[in-house]
Each structure stands twice: as structure tokens, then as C-alpha cells.
């Protein structure tokens, strides 16, 4: 084992020496800032992804894993001497399986983790990773309890509280409605978290919440929730939920003959990509999202094209988050390499890498441009700071508002 490690380090050193001679430049792909001077980033990073690849939440895990795979393929194709080896493990959206997956990755020699995708497993894994000192950048687990008290865990998505208050603010500022209904998933930390901040902000702004109904992960019948909103005369229904249940609510509201305004959050993104979904049902739905697959900037357009070519579908927000994770980690390593006269990550211990990455991510000068936001910065709590865009669905496509 020790011999192997030694030989790995030797190879790494050799590779570094060679690339240093080659003097590769223009490796700026997606990195926002950093990596100036002659400090090059080299070596191979073993990056693990943990998420539900099977089971009822498989859609989220697969999207993240696919998005991350595209980013890694692109990074490796740059030929800068830095590459990433990706290993995605299934956790079936279950804390126990997630910890198992994490240990499997450790046996593989993981150096940093882009994950986990869903909140409950993420809390379990981050506790393990915190004591083992393994860096985690979660693409989509947005609850505050994911990062609370764990310096090694950072979020690429918004923390829940921001979205709720931003939504209430937007609704009030634009006079969209005064009577509001909320339907949220109370089995989901993401949904409940947004609901709570939305509620307190709404009462502050004088919005009247006339109907609050809940559902859980297994729910497919929303007739009661929709009926409650309808009979209480809500003009706008706020849906801080993921797009699969949202599509059911839109359909069932339509068949009940109820046509309020619908307002969603980033989890709603992807509703137009559901195969077979009648997009006319989503006409006029508004949402706040950091990513929209219809954006025309080069970064997004390239990503959407690559994703579509490889997986035959339009990427959701989860895929975009997954895509940004490897780039953010690479950017952080480059940032460090630039300041410290180079960095070779091959065979570097996870602990050491964890310290480096924590330092960089918490650095106020470090920022990343990704498909889910330009100039993303993190605070030392691990929360990201980026601006959501408000979009409305018109003729089956997003239009900025």
C-alpha cells in the first residue's frame, strides 16, 4: 500500500515536471478568477458523487451524476495536466445507503465529494465526512442543517431561506396577488424551509395566505389541496416544490377548472422537459431559478448542447448544479495553485485537500462563474451567494421577467 502511494506520488511529480515544461496555457475554461502567475494545477483528482441513482428519487441523482460527468469529460479534454476521475455511487435516497456509498468511495481513495444530492442522506454523510475531514460540495441539498456546524460542507445551490423571502418580495413588489395559497411538501426539508421563510416574509409584506396545504413524497392526488386553494379564493398559488408534483398540481387544477397564477422556485425548473407533459398547462407559470436551459449565453448553450447530445434530454437545474460542481472545485484548486506556486493533487490526502478547499471557498476573493450563476461566492458557513432570475413560461419556453 505504502509502495503504491509512493509510486503514485512519484508519477505525479513526474507529470508535474513534464507539464511545467510544456507550459500549458489558456486553461481558463470555466474558472472565474485565480490561477495567475506560473502556479499550475496538475495531477488527477478522485472526485466522488453520491446520489439516488435508483429508487423514487433517481431522477435527481442521475441528473447530477450526468451533469458532473459532462463537466469532467470537458475538463479532461482540455489537456492541461489536470484531470478528474469521477465515481458516482448510488444511495437510493436513504441515509444508511448513503453512508455505505461514502465508505465505498473512501475505499476507492476519494479526495473530495460532489454530493450528496438529497438532503437527508447529505446530513448523514456530512457528519461522517466532517469527522474524516473530507471536503463536500453539495450540488442540491439546500437545507441549512446540511452545513450547520460543519466547516467542510459547502452548497452550490441556494440555501432554502433565501428563496422563500425573495419569492414573497417579488410577488409583493410586482403586485401579483394579495390572496396567496401555498402547497408544500412537509416531508422535504427543502420545501418546508422555503415555505417557512416565505410565510414570515409574506406577513411582513401584507400578503394574505388564505390556504396552506401539505403533502408527502408518495402523494399523487392533489384534488384536496387544489380544492382548498380554489374555495378560499387564492389568486396565486405558491409552489415551493419540485417539478414532478408541480406538474400534477397544474394538471389537477386545470381539470378542476381552477386557473390562478402559479409561482414556483428553482425546483420547478425542469417542468417543461417532462416527457409527454402538456406544456400549455404551464403557460404563465412564474418561477425564480438560478438556471434556465433556454438561456442564450455561451456557457449555458454549450452545456445544454453537450447534455442533449450525450443523454438525449434537456438538462434540469439538478444537472446544471452537478455540472458546476467539478468546475467549482477545479477553480478553487487553481486559485490555490496560483497563489502558492503550483499544486499537484495526485495522491494527495483527502484531509490536506479538505483544508485547502475550505480555505479557498471561504475566501471572499474566490468566485466562480457557472451555468447556475455568475460570480458565485461562498461565506464560511458554506452558503452560496448568487442571484435568482425570475422567469415566466410563455409558449412553452422561459422568458425573463
Amino acid at each position, binding site marked *: 500500500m505504502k509502495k503504491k502511494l509512493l509510486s503514485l506520488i512519484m508519477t505525479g511529480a513526474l507529470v508535474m515536471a513534464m507539464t511545467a515544461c510544456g507550459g500549458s496555457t489558456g486553461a481558463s475554461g470555466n474558472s472565474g478568477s485565480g490561477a495567475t502567475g506560473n502556479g499550475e494545477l496538475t495531477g488527477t483528482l478522485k472526485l466522488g458523487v453520491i446520489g439516488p441513482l435508483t429508487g423514487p428519487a433517481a431522477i435527481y*441523482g442521475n441528473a447530477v451524476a450526468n451533469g458532473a460527468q459532462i463537466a469532467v469529460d470537458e475538463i479532461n479534454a482540455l489537456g492541461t495536466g489536470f484531470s478528474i476521475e469521477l465515481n458516482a455511487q448510488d444511495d437510493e435516497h436513504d441515509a444508511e445507503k448513503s453512508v455505505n456509498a461514502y465508505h465505498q468511495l473512501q475505499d476507492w481513495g476519494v479526495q473530495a465529494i460532489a454530493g450528496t444530492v438529497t438532503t437527508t442522506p447529505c446530513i448523514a454523510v456530512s457528519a461522517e465526512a466532517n469527522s474524516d475531514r473530507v471536503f463536500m460540495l453539495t450540488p442540491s441539498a439546500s437545507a441549512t442543517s446540511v452545513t450547520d456546524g460543519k466547516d467542510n460542507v459547502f452548497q452550490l445551490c441556494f440555501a432554502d431561506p433565501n428563496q422563500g423571502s425573495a419569492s414573497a418580495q417579488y410577488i409583493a413588489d410586482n403586485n401579483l396577488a394579495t390572496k396567496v395559497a401555498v402547497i408544500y411538501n412537509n416531508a422535504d426539508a427543502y420545501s418546508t424551509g422555503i415555505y417557512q421563510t416565505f410565510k414570515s416574509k409574506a406577513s411582513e409584506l401584507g400578503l394574505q395566505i388564505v390556504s396552506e396545504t401539505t403533502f408527502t413524497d*408518495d402523494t399523487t*392526488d392533489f384534488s*384536496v389541496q387544489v*380544492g382548498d386553494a380554489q374555495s378560499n379564493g387564492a389568486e396565486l398559488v405558491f409552489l415551493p416544490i419540485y417539478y414532478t408534483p408541480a406538474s400534477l398540481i397544474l394538471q389537477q387544477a386545470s381539470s378542476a377548472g381552477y386557473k390562478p397564477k402559479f409561482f414556483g422556485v428553482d425546483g420547478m425548473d425542469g417542468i417543461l422537459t*417532462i416527457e409527454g407533459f402538456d406544456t400549455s398547462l404551464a403557460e404563465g407559470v412564474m418561477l425564480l431559478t438560478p438556471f434556465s436551459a433556454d438561456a442564450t449565453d455561451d456557457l449555458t448553450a454549450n452545456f445544454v448542447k453537450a447534455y442533449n447530445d450525450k443523454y438525449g434530454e434537456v438538462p434540469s437545474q439538478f444537472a446544471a448544479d452537478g455540472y458546476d460542481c467539478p468546475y467549482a472545485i477545479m477553480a478553487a484548486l487553481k486559485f490555490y495553485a496560483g497563489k502558492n506556486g503550483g499544486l499537484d493533487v495526485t495522491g494527495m490526502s483527502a484531509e490536506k485537500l479538505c483544508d485547502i478547499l475550505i480555505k479557498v471557498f471561504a475566501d471572499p476573493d474566490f468566485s466562480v462563474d457557472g451555468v447556475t450563476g455568475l460570480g458565485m461566492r461562498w461565506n464560511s458557513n458554506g452558503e452560496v451567494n448568487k442571484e435568482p432570475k425570475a422567469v415566466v413560461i410563455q409558449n412553452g419556453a422561459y422568458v425573463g421577467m
Partner: protein
Amino acid sequence: MLAHLINGISLGSIYAIIALGYTMVYGIAKMLNFAHGDVIMVGGYVSFCSMMYLGLPAPVAILAAVFVCTVLGIVVERLAYKPLRAATSLAVLITAIGMSYFLQNAALLIWGANPKAFPNMFKNIEAIEFAGARVSPVAIVSIVANLIIMIALTLFTTRTKVGKAMRAVSEDKGAATLMGINVNFTISLTFAIGSGLAAIAGVLLCTAYPTLMPTTGSMPGIKAFTAAVFGGIGSIPGAMIGGILLGIIEILARAYISSELADAIVFGVLIVVLIFRPTGLLGKQVHEKV
């Protein structure tokens, strides 16, 4: 109130059609076919694919789903359950659970994890206003389909020779064999009918709640199984009554008590019924012989 009642009957009709499959298979093979719920899901996917990829009209898509599920039911029975005819019922139960895992994961590999939005099959049917409440097309079709299926099955089991053979097998396998009834054929036929019904239920379920995932069938499967027990497992009218009552209780509980506790209330009512009628509403009381 009336609107909730109609929603409940519509949901209950779908449960009833699924429960019929459970009840028939249980009556004949004395096994709990846990893979039944996943046959519903396969039915949903097959009709989805025939409509979206092959562009077939809705009635043809339903027939395709019924055909595929019927074949699937027979194949599953032949491969996994028939070799265990002599084994304990627990062994068969575990095999059925294995089959359920198999179907779910096969579906995941074939159709992927992304949910599909099931197209509205009954666009041409108008919603009806009934005493101020709106009855959606799916609800109409579900209720009508349930009635037709129920009547057809009752006629089939009481009037036709094959149907009578089925009842004979469920009464006493050994005696049925002695009477010259082909037991294996009868069991296969039961699986075929049950799975065909599951396909219809799958189409109705997916039209009413248009999201299709590999796990779509599991929860309705368990609910329908509960409905079958509720009405008295093995009894055809029992499955229908159980299904509809279950649907109504579920929707009313969700509307007037709590959406979190709706399932708990459904199961609670089941327990109360079984305490007073230990073999369900219409189940046969079996007297023990000493």
C-alpha cells in the same frame, strides 16, 4: 363535499380494478402477488410508449398495454411462481417481492428515472356538471370501466365453463383435478386476467395522476391489496366495495382531517373492520374443523 365524494369514488374505482386482480389470484393460487402493483406500472409505460413513440390512438394503446401485461403475467407465473406451487406460502411471497424489485429495476433501466407525464387519453370526453360538482372525464371512465369489468367478471365466473373451473380450483385444487380441470391452465388464465385488469388500471391511474415512474405502481398496489382484504379477499364484489370505500375514506380523511394522517386513517378503518369481521366485509367465514 360532493366533489370530494366523486373524487373518492373515482380513485376507489381504480383501486377496485387493481384489487380484483389481487383477489382473483389470491382466491386461486392462495398467494399474495406483490408484483401486481408493478404490472400496473408496466401497463402505464406500454400505453405511454405506444402513444408517444408509435403514435397509436388511445384505444389501441390501451389494448397494447393489456396484451403486454397479460403476456407478462403469464410469463411471470410460469417462471417464478409455478415452480413453487408445492412450497410454503411465505416462499412464494418472498419470490413475489423479488419479482416486484425486478420489474421496478428493469423499468428503471429501460425507461430511465425521469418521470413521464402521461398524456390525457380522454380529451374527447366532456366533463359533466353533477349537482354543482364537476365530474372529470377520467372519473367517468373509471367508474364506468369498473362497473363493466365487475359485471363481466361476475358473469364470467358464474356462467362460463372456464369461469366455473376457476371457482372449482379456488375451492379445492385436488378435487378440481379429479374432475378433469386443468389446474395449471386455470391458474395461468387467472394471472392473465388479473394482469390485463392491472394494465387497464394502470392506464386509468396514470391518466388521473399523470406521472409515470418505475415506482408508480407500488403504493396503489398496497392500497388495492388493503382494499381486497377490506372487502374480503377472494370475493369479487368484495374487491369492488372495498376499493370504492377505501377511495372515499382516503379522500375524505385527507380533506377533513389531515393529509398526513389519511393513510393512517385508511389502515385504521381496515383494522376496525377486521376486528369485527375477521375475514373482511364479504369474505367467507371459515369454520375450523377439529
